[in-house]
């Protein structure tokens, strides 16, 4: 089954979440780390937007910035706006912001064991969110917790609400996390590597569950992941990040078919892809295409295009000047001086 939700975001509809020129810096002894450096994007109702990139590219910091959960010091959101349904979150005071977290925007994390409280029952952890944001009694909140566990298809929910995280399997814990995140019916769900710690068959279950609940509840999802397979199967639009910046953005089919940034190309080429299942004939193990080098330290970014030192097509202009982030094809943006020459990215009418 194609796990992607069939809901097509209405074109031109007002964006639910608008992020404009977000800049999150960390001020360290080694210098200023521009973890997120001018990231803009819009999220529409019911849509799944994937943010992909390698560790350190700023995808998780982008997510935490939306919730204003950046540890300060050393971190600070130094610029940009984040508007949820037209309201600027950056100007809210802390109590108002607390009202947004878990209520309007909630988040699930990669490692359910470390993000759940080990000495609190699952039921109380779900009820806690509900009690915080809704005017209900403890009893009602616990009843809602059971309901949420049923929604995320945890068997015997009446039993499970009384259990502790360690009594649940990894997949069940992630389901419990999703139950907590969705307990207040948020408009936006940020899923930060939600299935990375899980087994494939469990990952398939969790992705199916997220898509199903998204359709049922109309939640918009920001899916942060490094797994291009997960992106291909769940997202509608994709942002590729590298060293704190957006390097490419396109609808998912477009991105996989016509990647316009050498980094995206490299990523797509470097993943092993079950070739035999796709009918290819190579019985002897083949070398994978590598992207040479490592992601540069954010304290010591190169001049010009940050990908240039690892890019086999880089020329003098790339090393001198950061390329503009431009629309190269319909709905397809990239920051590369040479994409037209390399991939024929002339804007199609």
């Amino acid at each position, binding site marked *: *089954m*194609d*796990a*992607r939700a069939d809901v097509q975001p209405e074109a031109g509809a007002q964006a639910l979440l608008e992020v404009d020129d977000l800049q999150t810096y960390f001020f360290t002894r080694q210098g200023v780390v521009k973890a997120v450096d001018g990231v803009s994007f819009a999220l529409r109702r019911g849509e799944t937007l994937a943010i992909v990139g*390698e*560790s350190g590219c700023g995808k998780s910091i982008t997510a935490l910035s939306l919730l204003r959960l950046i540890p300060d010091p050393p971190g600070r959101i130094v610029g940009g706006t984040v508007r949820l349904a037209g309201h600027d979150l950056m100007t809210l005071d802390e109590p108002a912001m607390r009202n947004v977290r878990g209520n309007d925007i909630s988040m699930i994390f990669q490692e359910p064991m470390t993000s759940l409280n080990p000495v609190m029952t699952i039921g109380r952890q779900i009820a806690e969110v509900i009690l915080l944001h809704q005017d209900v009694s403890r009893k009602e909140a616990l009843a809602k917790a059971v309901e949420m566990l049923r929604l995320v298809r945890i068997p015997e929910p009446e039993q499970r609400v009384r259990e502790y995280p360690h009594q649940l*399997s*990894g*997949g*069940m814990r992630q389901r419990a996390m999703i139950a907590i995140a969705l307990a207040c019916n948020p408009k936006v769900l940020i899923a930060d590597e939600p299935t990375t710690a899980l*087994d*494939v*068959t*469990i*990952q*398939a*279950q969790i*992705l*199916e569950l997220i898509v199903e609940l998204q359709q049922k509840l109309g939640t918009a999802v920001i899916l942060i992941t*490094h*797994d*291009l*397979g*997960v*992106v*291909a*199967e*769940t997202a509608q639009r994709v942002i590729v990040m590298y060293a704190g910046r957006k390097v490419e953005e396109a609808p*998912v*089919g477009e991105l*996989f*078919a016509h990647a316009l940034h050498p980094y995206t190309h*490299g*990523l*797509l080429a*470097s*993943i*092993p*892809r*079950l*070739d*035999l*299942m*796709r009918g290819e004939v190579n*019985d002897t*193990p*083949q*070398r*994978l*295409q*590598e*992207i*040479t080098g*490592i*992601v540069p330290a954010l304290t010591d970014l190169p001049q010009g295009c940050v990908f240039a030192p690892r890019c086999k097509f880089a020329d003098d202009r790339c090393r001198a000047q950061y390329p503009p982030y431009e629309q190269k094809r319909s709905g397809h943006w990239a920051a590369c001086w040479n994409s037209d020459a390399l991939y024929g990215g002339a804007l199609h009418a």
Partner: protein
Amino acid sequence: MLDDVKPKPGAGAATGSGNVLEVQDLKKHFPIRKGLLRRTVGHVYAVDGVTFSIKAGETLGLVGESGCGKSTVGRVILRLIEPTAGSIKVEGHDITRLSKAEMRPYRRQMQIIFQDPFSSLDPRMTAGNIVGEPLGVHGVGKRRERRDQVAQLFERVGLRRGQMDNYPHQFSGGQRQRIGIARALALNPRLIIGDEPVSALDVSIQAQVINLLMDLQRELGLGYLFISHNLAVVEHISHKIAVMYLGRLVEYADKRTIFTSPKHPYTEALLSAVPVPDPAIKRKKLVVQGDVPSPMRPPPGCHFHTRCPYAVDRCKVEVPALRDLGGGQLVACHLR
């Protein structure tokens, strides 16, 4: 490289089967003790009768979900955990019952690379000392020679000599995994067990490490037991694949057979669960429901029957044997 280090314990006694590793009906049951008298009240059937072999220069991919016992298999082979039953042969020598002292020469022949390069390296040791430690432990060469060997190993795995005095935190994840690989290579082993060696790495770095492992295998004729949950990676690096479920092998065949005509329903489910990085491909997914049952109380009969969409009554009572369906494809399923 490092030919002087190459161990040949009991040279000449090998059976000459060409197998670096032979595992026969391997079992590991962990006792569960409870109460004041620590009486054994049950067992965790972590590994329950596993048989396979690995030739020099060959990679066996051992796949399965967490808790299926695949890591325990790796550790039992190294005798980091004592097996309950079965036999382990390294280069034809049975090491199952050897004493600690007798094990020492064999320890040099088998090494392990762990998943998490962040927790498997001692943060207080320099990278050079980490890589050189096995040489010291086994008394190989003098201090000065060892330093040269370590430098060679650094270059072998794509690190710079100049980085030998750095500490683990000064390296990136991929580089740390290279340190782990260099350390594993230090004693010139015949077999390397990789326990999810690339799972914690970024995709572009993962490709570098996989390529490094494949190059090393080609040059040094290493046998690999590659333990992973990532089927795409396993497909890429392996020659043969063993699929494990709750302590037992459910399917064992060469790579092509497993990926083009899987016969066990669990293998089928695993393959169909892998997200394909191509939005143009629409597949019918076989999403199996439920979790892996507890290995403390494995279901009777075929362990997979609780989640298998095709299970019949026989599956609930009778354990299916691993049968050859032709062409060396071994499958444990009543319905095939």
